[in-house]
């Protein structure tokens, strides 16, 4: 026994001392946040850019900045998913802002919350970037006092993705231009979209669209003030006829007949791509990725240059500069460079992030871009057109997402869970709205 004990203890002690040595070594790791207090341009500084998903900012691209700014080294830290990045950013902001990167990427959906704390970000207004984006891109990032807290990177202009093979089987046209025309072309409306859907489901086993919530999201994003007045005061849901109208449309019998009754991103949703579950999807530029991923072996997907009710946007990101950073001005310059049309086109080529800069839309590198999975659809041109079609900037105040969730849950109960009828679920939404205590 003595021997084994000794051996065991020796092993433990040995492991512990190696480990301590190891910590000692690792603590030399360079601090990722910016070093030095250089406010002068000449001093060498390191700027960190925190992104998520894939912004298309490769090391080579970042090195280009050092060529024109020899004193600046740019480092990128990446979070896998935007929700990881969001938790990270909110934690650091809530704890006072220490440890933030010099440039922090954010998603459009975080803005209603962040804009309330606009003092924590640098004002990015400058002549250089004047007119770089469409109004609907800059407005959500602009505080009430005119302060701009984010430079737009990519956008999510929405088109209609469709299964040409299912269309053909149901006797509908398959060519993208014809499909766009079928859905109403420039004058496309939701009614038209549902009407075509009806003719489709009459002749097909498949549903017309995947999820009523996706349709509702597309519709509500075309309202200028969905849940709140533009001064930020919430509209009582019980009196919100616009929203109730949309709700009744998507939960009504006519539209429900077209639905595949799937919750987006659920396991059943993912699986139904393989089972011809539905024929069309509202399709922001970035959605081409998930569709391709889930549709392995299916060849019928295509994209029509059309969207019901005018243009629509879903998602997209910005670069912000936290005010607490030691090199905030230098970071602002870097952010402006990263979101310039030329660089954003390069990012698009690297990662498929569709640029939000109006000038980038005419860049041949973009207009020539095709997606071979979608039957070689000219995605650059299509989404460029869809971007230009966006006329409405939906106002999203501090309570937008809380209220949106009450309606979204009600739609899920009717469409996916089938645990309540339309009226009962609406009552549930009203109760949940009241519980918000607004």
């Amino acid at each position: 026994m003595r021997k084994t004990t000794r051996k065991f203890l020796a092993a433990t002690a040995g492991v512990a001392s190696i480990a301590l040595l190891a910590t000692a070594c690792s603590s030399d790791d360079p601090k990722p946040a910016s070093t030095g207090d250089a406010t002068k341009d000449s001093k060498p500084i390191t700027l960190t850019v925190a992104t998520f998903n894939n912004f298309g900012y490769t090391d080579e691209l970042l090195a280009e900045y050092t060529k024109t700014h020899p004193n600046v080294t740019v480092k990128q830290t990446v979070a896998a998913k935007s929700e990881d990045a969001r938790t990270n950013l909110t934690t650091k902001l809530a704890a006072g802002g220490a440890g933030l990167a010099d440039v922090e990427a954010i998603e459009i959906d975080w803005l209603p919350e962040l804009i309330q704390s606009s003092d924590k970000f640098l004002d990015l207004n400058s002549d250089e970037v004047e007119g770089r984006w469409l109004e609907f891109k800059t407005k959500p990032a602009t505080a009430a006092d005119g302060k701009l807290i984010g430079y737009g990177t990519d956008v999510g202009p929405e088109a209609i993705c469709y299964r040409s093979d299912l269309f053909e089987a149901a006797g509908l046209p398959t060519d993208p231009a014809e499909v766009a025309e079928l859905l109403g072309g420039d004058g496309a409306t939701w009614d038209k979209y549902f009407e075509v859907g009806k003719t489709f489901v009459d002749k097909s086993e498949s549903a017309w669209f995947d999820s009523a919530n996706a349709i509702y999201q597309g519709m509500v994003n075309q309202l200028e003030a969905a849940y709140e007045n533009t001064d930020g005061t919430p509209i009582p849901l019980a009196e919100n006829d616009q929203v109730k109208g949309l709700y009744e449309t998507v939960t009504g019998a006519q539209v429900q007949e077209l639905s595949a009754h799937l919750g987006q991103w659920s396991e059943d949703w993912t699986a139904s791509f393989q089972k011809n579950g539905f024929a069309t999807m509202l399709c922001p530029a970035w959605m081409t990725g998930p569709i391709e991923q889930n549709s392995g072996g299916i060849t019928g997907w295509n994209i029509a240059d059309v969207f019901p009710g005018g243009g629509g946007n879903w998602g997209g990101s910005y670069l912000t500069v936290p005010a607490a950073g030691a090199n905030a001005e230098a970071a602002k310059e870097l952010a402006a460079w990263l979101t310039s049309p030329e660089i954003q086109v390069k990012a698009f080529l690297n990662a498929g992030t569709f640029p939000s800069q109006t000038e980038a839309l005419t860049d041949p590198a973009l207009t020539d871009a095709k997606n071979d999975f979608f039957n070689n659809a000219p995605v650059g041109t299509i989404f460029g057109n869809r971007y230009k079609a966006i006329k409405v900037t939906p106002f999203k105040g501090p309570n937008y997402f809380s209220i949106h969730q009450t309606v979204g849950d009600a739609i899920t109960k009717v469409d996916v869970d089938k645990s309540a009828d339309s009226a009962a679920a609406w009552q549930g939404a009203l109760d949940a709205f009241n519980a918000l205590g607004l």
Partner: protein
Amino acid sequence: MSVQSPVEPESDLAPAPRQPRRVGFSQTLSRWDVKVSPYLYISPFFILFFITGLFPILYTGYVSVHKWQLLQGQGDFVGFDNYVDVFKQKDFWLSLRNTLSIFVISAVPQVIAAILIAAFLDQNLRAKTFWRMGVLLPYVVAPVAVGLIFGRLFADQSGLINAWLGAFGIDPVRWHVDPLASHIAIATMVNFRWTGYNALIFLAAMQAVPRELYEAAIIDGAGRVRSFFSVTIPQIRATVLFVVITSTIGGLQIFDEPRVFDSAGAGGASRQWLTTTLYLYNTGWSGQYNLGRAAAIAWLLFVLILVIGLVNFALTQRIASGSSSGPGKKVKRQSKRYDSNRTSA
């Protein structure tokens, strides 16, 4: 001197006459050793707790009596308004129901299965290491793999379980709609991960039970089942208590599994699988970012866990001591402790 014989009380005050004087110093040292050592040994935990554990608790308490938004930070002092608000929220009560339901569905079978698996492992098996580590495998499988697998098992339409049930002509279970079904699915994920873990904890304790006790029980004519109840269980009482307490605390804090049960992480459209920790997190970290209310929920949950933990503590002690009065040979080994108020000669 025999180990069993009682130590003369307080003999250190008057050194034994035959001992040389210089022993006095080492005796003083020894007395200090005995008095101070216990505190020294438990100090790392408490020092660390006061550095990294206490501040978060006090901070949470401070936040809970203020209007406090996650990003904008501190607002007005509001007293116990946040606590009152929590009680008015339907979701809070719903979350308590779900938490208790998932807890009961997961913890009870889990502890029973763990103790049985441990009993099976505590045998003269061939390839011991393989079996022991085999039952712990689920604990190491990365959450992403577990999520992928359970997602495919429990999908409402495309899931494997419903496909199997369908093969037997049973209607598909609506895992993501029906509250009880969702609780069962979540409890299954929890049990998958923690049953083997608890089994090994029990096994470690069972290994320390003196084999003589079993031999004596066999001589007394007890079978395996009998000796399990009259020797094993009483002998590992402290460990049973440990597992029950830690499972209670862990079970009432269940967070990851309900969060990943669907892609939204909100506990379902009707909040049918919203647990209290998930509710706490979503209150502070999404929607209204109401950190003040979230902190109040945290404190209420803390109190709830303490209460249920104490009830379980009392129950377990009663059950464990009740079963120890079986016919098997009883050996009392516990409760003697080395006393810092006396020193050995």
